[in-house]
């Protein structure tokens, strides 16, 4: 990143000098040609297929001082090609004239968006060089400071600049986004001298003769030694092409390559440096014939893999892992199990064998059930592999496990690779899993030249199969004869911090011998502290206080980090710290951020026929509307059954709309003019930000760090929008669906990372302990050091692996899981402690919200005297929670509360507000499963009304209902019909030929409000009891019949007949559950309904966000603060 930024600064300086010298930046071709002339470089156009271009678009021949460029394309294209090649010249490139590896791309983003394939295949070092040149070129022709001035001061839109320059909109827009949204930091060229190796590091670097494991604790110069090892090998005359360096992150690989490049740039290019996964992908591409996969396979992410399986699910006939309502979670859990199997190189067949073996030896009922479950996973695994093959796709797990199987099977391939790579080096060896170890074993033969470095105490990737088990085996079962060596000198931390680390380390499960480190730094004279506050909310204030103290002591905000145990707490903590005036650098879940939701809501206006996105746009200055106006528009569009885009014409003529509201609608109409449901999301949002509104300009000039963070997250969103997987359907709809799925499957993780350009802002870094791995900070704050928070208790895996799958595990699968979990929790804490250079602050509360005593974490107790406990009284009162502020609603006295709304209110009051008071429900894109459930609902309602139960009638009715949706054309329509028929069969069987019944709504008065309940079926049993039924097509939910909604139903039924019975019917799992409650439960349920009515009148609708349910909520993209004004319900 810094190299790219440096290159851009050189380019910007040259631009300014050129303008000084009289060049006209508005004529890019003349500008570039003049610049070449100034540099004494001849430039010549040539045919785009000229032999001299060698397939590239342009080439720089340094020893001829000549740039050749393709002469087709616009003037700007040519200017860009010349500028790109000038970059090679200006940034001192000897590699200028090798075949270009990447297409020259004027609109290139400085960073690849971390989704899909880009997650695995980062740019190679040489490719990064080309990326750098593209950005150099863009900066030379239109430097950020210039476009920024044009946009901010001269108020030129991106479109206007592009037109005057003759450049594509995309190029100018990308440059403006960089200029306005990302901080531009002046980077001084860094001192690029490596510290010489110390004695123990040198000994490690020069090792020869047998496999070697270097145990390198935090701050001991692990990467330095690894780079030193490579330098040593090069000095020994080893051909750099024969060196393979494997890492676990693209970032680490990039850093190693850059560091080698400082001393030997050519070798850095020749050495294969990359992650296990990208190396695996490289092998798969090279040997794709042997593996029978396409040369360029498509890499599935979790969302795509889920979609692939979901389609197949009705055919799999599962019983333990059955969910025919919404199988997303089950599929995702099974995919996790499959991915774990691949970590262990257990393919679908091997998995089936293991599961069968479990079945054969099972004796108890539990063992049988466990075996059956494993069999079901095996079945899905087989189907999944088949589907992937058909689609020519691979998943992440395949990238290592396929090459392992191939290498183990084919001697010739093994031989080829063993002669190709004579020296193999592995970074972060504690993170290897079985499949990576087997890859190494196959690659290295006798492993004489295998050199690995790691630290068992920092093993925090259990979820992908890493286990200290692999470290234990090094030199014994794995790579026998291997030697171990330990670095002891710590350069990072003061003795006070190291004492804490040592105190904890010696009691860790993975500790092995003396794990202490020798400090190289002098004592700072200040012990690490545990600041004990009263309550959890006090902790935040205590952190803010400590951050302030450290500022007084001369540290910047940017020198400090707050590390949390999990993601859940982060965003709340971030907001609270900001409210206390502490600048915080933290993105969190990208799609939860208000400014990102604002833009997705704008996009949704192009596809959503109810334009609920207005709820967000109405809160912006440019399109300000009152809540009442928004409600009127939504209401009107519903009444006229509007179609997507109709609001452009209907919007301003909504009855009762205020003049301001009408004006906002027409402004919004203009802001989206020319776009439709078919438009590309990136283009819509870029145009909206840069051409139709001043959003980006305003963010760029806002002074506060919170506004800067907004800019950064919008930049991240734009980077995400640029590359979307191709697929069927309209691009915007597909995008919005994909976002919902990403969040639901928690696959948006990498989008939480800050773009590199943001890393230098002076703000406190807020991240998880996981995320802090490999980083260091002067000051580290660790909140939440209470029992229950740390260590977290172990949760059993949703789909446990079959016995015998996990190498080195005991047969007690769950016991093994727990053991690994406990180890990992310790490692996490150790990682967190060892991030600190100068000081550590830990925080714990002493009572919980209810006032009961809260103990400190057992981990803290292990630290003994190394930690001084300081009872702390925070300087201020903690802030309250914003989302609890009441909404200004007026609910009329005759407002009818729908019975099913009660359950919704209990789950999320805010969702109740959106669906019942604003009525923004409406259908989203439906999966085949949802369509099937709709069809079943239609048919059972018809069966109740007509009293029909004849199978032929059911079959005909289902056929008709299927035909009404696109389900009839689905490839597996027969399977869906079979499922639906089965559900209806159950329904008619329990209805037992009762006479037809027209549903009648029952009314219940609660707390002065009407609650209406409409039973799905009512009849009198043979015993003479009146039975009221609620029919659900999905499966049983635990305790649903005890919740306030069910109680209200029961109360309404008892009003009709005191002896009435209420039953909940679940068609998916064929279950009948009577609402059978004690008097106490009945009373408590009634109270809740009562309270709810008061809360609705009082406008209390706090949101209860959850990754699981929010993505399915109709208000997912609009949920948040509401437009100003009062809402009159049921006007």
């Amino acid at each position: 990143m810094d190299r790219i930024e440096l290159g851009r600064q050189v380019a910007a300086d040259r631009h300014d000098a050129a303008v000084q010298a009289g060049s006209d930046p508005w004529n890019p071709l003349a500008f570039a040609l003049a610049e070449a002339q100034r540099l004494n470089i001849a430039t010549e156009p040539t045919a785009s297929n000229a032999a001299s271009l060698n397939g590239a678009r342009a080439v720089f021949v340094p020893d001829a001082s000549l740039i050749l460029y393709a002469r087709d394309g616009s003037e700007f294209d040519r200017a860009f090609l010349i500028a790109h090649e000038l970059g090679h010249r200006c940034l001192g490139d000897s590699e200028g004239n090798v075949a270009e590896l990447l297409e020259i791309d004027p609109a290139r983003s400085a960073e690849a968006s971390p989704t899909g394939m880009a997650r695995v295949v980062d740019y190679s070092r040489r490719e990064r060089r080309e990326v750098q040149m593209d950005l150099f070129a863009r900066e030379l022709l239109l430097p950020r400071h210039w476009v920024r001035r044009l946009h901010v001061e001269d108020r030129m839109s991106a479109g206007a600049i592009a037109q005057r320059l003759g450049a594509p909109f995309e190029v100018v827009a990308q440059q403006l986004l960089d200029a306005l949204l990302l901080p531009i930091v002046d980077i001084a060229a860094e001192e690029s001298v490596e510290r010489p190796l110390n004695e123990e590091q040198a000994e490690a670097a020069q090792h020869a003769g047998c496999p070697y494991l270097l145990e390198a604790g935090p701050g001991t110069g692990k990467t330095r030694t690894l780079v030193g090892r490579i330098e040593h090998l090069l000095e020994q005359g080893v051909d750099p092409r024969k060196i393979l360096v494997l890492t676990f992150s693209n970032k680490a690989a990039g850093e190693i390559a850059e560091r080698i490049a400082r001393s030997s740039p050519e070798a850095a290019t020749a050495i294969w440096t990359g992650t296990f996964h990208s190396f695996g992908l490289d092998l798969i591409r090279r040997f794709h014939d042997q593996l029978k996969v396409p040369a360029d396979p498509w890499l599935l992410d979790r969302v795509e893999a889920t979609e692939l399986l979901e389609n197949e699910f009705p055919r799999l006939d599962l019983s333990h892992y059955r969910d025919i309502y919404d199988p997303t979670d089950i599929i995702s859990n099974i995919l996790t199990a499959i991915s774990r199997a691949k970590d262990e190189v257990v393919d679908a067949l091997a998995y089936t064998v293991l599961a069968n073996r479990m079945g054969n030896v099972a004796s108890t009922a539990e063992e049988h059930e466990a075996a059956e479950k494993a069999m079901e996973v095996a079945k899905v695994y087989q189907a999944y592999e088949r589907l992937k093959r058909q689609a020519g796709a691979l998943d992440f797990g395949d990238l290592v496990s396929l090459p392992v199987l191939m290498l183990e099977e084919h001697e010739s391939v093994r031989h080829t690779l063993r002669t190709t790579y004579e020296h193999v080096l592995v970074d972060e060896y504690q993170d290897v899993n079985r499949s990576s170890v087997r890859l190494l074993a196959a690659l290295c033969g006798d492993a004489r030249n295998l050199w690995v470095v790691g630290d068992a105490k920092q093993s925090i990737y259990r979820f992908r199969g890493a286990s200290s088990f692999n470290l234990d085996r090094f030199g014994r079962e794995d790579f026998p004869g291997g030697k171990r060596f330990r670095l002891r000198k710590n350069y990072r931390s003061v003795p006070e911090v190291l004492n804490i680390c040592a105190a904890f380390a010696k009691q860790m499960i993975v500790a092995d011998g003396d794990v202490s480190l020798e400090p190289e730094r002098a004592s700072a004279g200040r012990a690490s502290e545990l600041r004990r506050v009263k309550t959890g909310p006090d902790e935040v204030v205590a952190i803010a206080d400590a951050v302030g103290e450290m500022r007084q002591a001369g540290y910047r905000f940017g020198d400090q980090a707050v590390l949390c145990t999990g993601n859940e707490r982060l965003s709340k903590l971030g907001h609270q710290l900001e409210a206390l005036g502490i600048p915080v650098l933290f993105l969190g879940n990208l799609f939860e951020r208000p400014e990102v939701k604002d833009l997705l809501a704008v996009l949704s206006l192009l596809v959503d026929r109810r334009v609920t996105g207005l709820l967000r746009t109405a809160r912006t200055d440019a399109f300000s509307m009152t809540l009442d106006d928004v409600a009127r528009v939504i209401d009107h569009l519903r009444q006229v059954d509007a179609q997507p885009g109709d609001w452009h014409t209907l919007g301003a003529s909504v009855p009762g709309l205020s003049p301001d509201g009408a004006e906002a609608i027409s402004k919004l109409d203009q802001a989206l003019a020319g776009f439709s449901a078919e438009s590309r999301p990136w283009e819509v949002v870029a145009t909206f930000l840069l051409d139709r509104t001043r959003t980006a300009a305003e963010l760029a000039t806002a002074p506060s760090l919170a506004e800067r963070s907004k800019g950064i997250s919008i930049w991240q969103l734009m980077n995400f929008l640029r590359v979307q997987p191709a697929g069927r359907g309209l691009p915007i709809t597909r995008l919005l669906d994909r976002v919902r799925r990403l969040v639901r499957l928690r696959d948006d993780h990498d989008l939480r990372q800050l773009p590199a350009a943001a890393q230098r802002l002076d703000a406190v870094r807020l991240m998880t302990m996981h995320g802090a791995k490999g980083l260091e900070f002067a000051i580290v704050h660790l909140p939440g050091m209470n029992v229950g928070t740390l260590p977290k208790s172990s949760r059993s895996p949703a789909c446990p692996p079959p016995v015998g799958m996990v190498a080195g595990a005991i047969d007690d699968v769950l016991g093994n899981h727990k053991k690994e979990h406990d180890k990992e929790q310790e490692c996490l804490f150790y990682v967190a402690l060892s991030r600190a250079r100068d000081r550590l602050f830990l925080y714990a509360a002493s009572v919980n919200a209810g006032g009961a005593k809260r103990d400190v974490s057992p981990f803290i107790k292990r630290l003994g005297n190394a930690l001084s406990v300081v009872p702390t009284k925070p300087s201020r009162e903690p802030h309250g929670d914003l989302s609890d502020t009441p909404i200004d609603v007026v609910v009329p006295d005759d407002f009818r509360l729908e019975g099913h709304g009660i359950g919704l209110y209990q789950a999320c009051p805010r969702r109740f507000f959106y669906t019942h008071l604003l009525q923004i429900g409406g259908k989203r894109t439906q999966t085949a499963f949802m369509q099937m459930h709709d069809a079943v609902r239609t048919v059972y309602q018809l069966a109740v009304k007509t009293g029909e139960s004849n199978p032929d009638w059911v079959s005909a009715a289902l056929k008709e209902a299927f035909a009404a949706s696109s389900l009839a054309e689905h490839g597996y329509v027969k399977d869906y019909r079979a499922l639906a028929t089965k559900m209806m069969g159950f329904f008619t069987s329990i209805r037992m030929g009762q006479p037809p019944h027209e549903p009648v709504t029952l009314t219940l008065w609660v707390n002065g409000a009407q609650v209406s309940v409409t039973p799905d079926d009512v009849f009198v049993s043979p015993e003479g009891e009146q039975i009221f039924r609620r029919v659900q097509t999905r499966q049983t939910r635990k305790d649903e019949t005890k919740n306030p909604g069910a109680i209200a139903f029961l109360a309404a039924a008892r009003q009709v007949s005191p002896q009435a019975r209420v039953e909940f019917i679940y068609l998916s799992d064929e279950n009948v559950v009577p609402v059978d409650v004690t008097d106490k439960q009945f009373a408590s349920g009634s109270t809740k309904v009562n309270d709810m009515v008061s809360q609705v009148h009082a406008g209390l609708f706090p949101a209860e966000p959850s990754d699981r349910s929010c993505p399915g909520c109709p208000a997912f993209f609009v949920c948040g603060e509401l437009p100003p004004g009062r809402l009159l319900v049921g006007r």
Partner: protein
Amino acid sequence: MVPSMPTLDDVLEAFAMEPSLDRNTLQRYLRDYPDFATALIDYSQEIFQSQQEADRPLDAHDRARVDSALARFQTVAAQAVPALAQMNAGKLGELARLLTVPHQVVLAFRECGVIVNSVPRRKLIVIADFVGASLQDLTSYLSLPKRSLARSFKSDDKPSNTEKVTFERLLRDAGLADGEIERLLVDEP
């Protein structure tokens, strides 16, 4: 120093390195190195047979041999006409002006990217004169396999384009007008 001609080994190695070992390539070599005709024919048959046997990837030893042979070959060849092979930017511009052609055309000569038979003899004489070589040395040099602009380090690079092109094509690619091209193709002073 009298520049030495490529030896039989050099020529055979270069031949083996050709991207395509079809009849045309063989004929070109036979034409350019009539002295080695018998050896070239035998060798081409041997290569053809060994290719049938296995398309084994080159091992480290092979690759090292090929690399060093190519380097040796090119060095030897370059020594024949050092002033052209190592021509710097200034000289390149001078020669371009002398020939009234764009720099890229001279660059193609330097990199042996032109089909020598397609160049008007007059032009060859001007070049030979400029670089202080005999016409025969220049012709032999230009008949060498095309040099790629830079030998890159990594083995998995895209294969370079090794096709030679005609003088006329070079002029057309450089975007000269028809009349200009016609004038340059006339083989009279």
